[in-house]
């Protein structure tokens, strides 16, 4: 891997909560258009890492580079505008906003006057249309005007994904998008993510416990344990690494 096709690099990132070291000099690289998988036992620091990557948490030390630019000091919304977009382990939605509004919110990057009416101007109409396309892909178009709080748990996950996709991300940080979703739908979501990556060239850093579904789509895998990267490599190599088996079984 050369450094020009590197989209995102976290270098020696550390983060502690009080005395607890959640991340200990973690280095993770995501190349352009790659699907990078991050796995590890519960509490190994995966969610913490994603939150540092998207700016919700500040690292104690280390640096974050995105498209060759140091983004360590940037607040979440600035990183979002650069194209670093996150979905959370527990879907984070605006319960009283409608499904469509939840999605539209993430399309703020489009440079149109924010004051123009959603129904009137051409640019705004295109935006609504694009939002509908994504909703349709995820079978959420029929509930577009429902408040988000009325959705089922699975639909909430899909809505969060729809919101992430409509913002035209360059790097998607996905925290367990398959958790709590039935196996058939989980397979579909994974196919869908693969397709988005292929067709739009969106790079992804995926945190997932369901290796049976996720592993075969991954290009590269990082294994975290107690806040450290204990193994990395191709999916095949990592699965065979005795250290990894020990980390999972030892808990």
């Amino acid at each position, binding site marked *: 891997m050369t450094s020009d096709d590197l989209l995102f690099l976290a270098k020696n990132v550390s983060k502690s909560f009080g005395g607890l070291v959640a991340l200990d000099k973690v280095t993770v690289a995501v190349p352009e258009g790659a699907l990078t998988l991050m796995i590890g036992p519960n509490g190994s620091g995966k969610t913490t890492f994603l939150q540092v990557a998207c700016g919700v948490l500040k690292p104690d030390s280390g640096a974050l580079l995105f498209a060759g630019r140091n983004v360590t000091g940037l607040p979440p919304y600035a990183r979002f505008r650069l194209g670093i977009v996150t979905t959370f382990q527990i879907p984070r939605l605006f319960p009283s906003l409608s499904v469509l509004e939840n999605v539209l919110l993430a399309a703020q990057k489009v440079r149109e006057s924010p004051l*123009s009416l959603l129904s009137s101007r051409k640019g705004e109409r295109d935006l609504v249309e694009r939002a509908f396309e994504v909703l349709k892909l995820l079978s959420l178009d029929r509930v577009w005007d429902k408040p988000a709080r009325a959705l089922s748990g699975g639909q909430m996950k899909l809505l969060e994904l729809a919101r992430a996709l409509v913002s035209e991300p360059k790097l998607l940080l996905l925290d367990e998008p398959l958790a709590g979703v039935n196996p058939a739908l989980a397979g579909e979501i994974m196919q869908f993510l693969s397709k988005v990556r292929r067709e739009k060239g969106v790079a992804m850093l995926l945190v997932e416990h369901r290796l049976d579904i996720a592993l075969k789509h991954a290009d590269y895998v990082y294994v975290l344990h107690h806040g450290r990267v204990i193994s990395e490599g191709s999916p095949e190599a990592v699965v065979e690494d005795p250290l990894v088996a020990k980390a999972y079984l030892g808990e």
Partner: protein
Amino acid sequence: MLDLLVGALVYSNLLALMAVGLSLALITCRVSNFAHGDFAMVGVYVAYTLSVVAGLTPYAWIPAAFAFGGLVSLLAYLLVFEPLRERTDLVTLMVVSMALDMVLRYSLHVYADLMQQWLRVYTRLFMFDDFLVEAAGSRLPGVLPASTAVVAALLASLYVLLYKTRVGVAMRAAIENPGLAEALGVSVRRVFALSWFLSGALAATAGVFLPFRIMVSPDTGWSMLLPTFAAVTVGGIGSLGGSVLGAYLIGFSETVLAYQLAQVGISTAYRPLLTFAAIIVTLLVYPRGLSGLWSGKGWSLRRRS
């Protein structure tokens, strides 16, 4: 009797603008803003100054009052409440707003003195000249149709802004969950700044109508606070639609009850008592207020969490 009705309606119109503005400050930064009445007085003095200097009725200067009141409120947000946001408790914020009230109120007093020397007009206990309109065989003060039209136009515009534009979606999102909105690319600071601009602008607009009914001074804004807080509380704290309803409920009941008291020989000086009673009864009996009745549906913005 007609006088009473006209009085109640104008007063309620004014309260509606005040209450919606106060609610905007409450739902964005959780400030029970005691400086809100001063924004109204800023509007009064802007319209008064311009109508003395440049002529024309004060009505013509409503846009200027709107803009200037909004600006003062925007500065209050940027310089005082934004730096404190998410960083301090409700009581501190309230005390800070009381301090801000002092600063603004005494600045207005200083301005009133300067204006008096400069323009040689009374700048305390003055009123505006109104025009009269013929309607249904009687003569009504112009402030009735004027304030009604302005309130209707402003509330309708606010509704469109919040529900039909992208910045409105962002504003509602930032109110509901500022942290998440921020993570999704919304600059919470900017949409809250817009909310605060509107908060002061609406109050200043309300202010312009005030001297058509009563004599005003820099301290008048302070006395408008109590009924405004009552309207917001009765309407349901945090709900803009509720604030509007609360304003008309408080406006009418206060006017009518004060009239009844006067009929049986009790001084109207006890008028604030009724308003206080409305706040206390609401908080004791049904703290969610009128908007609680339609439970979060419709025009109700509220911060969860």
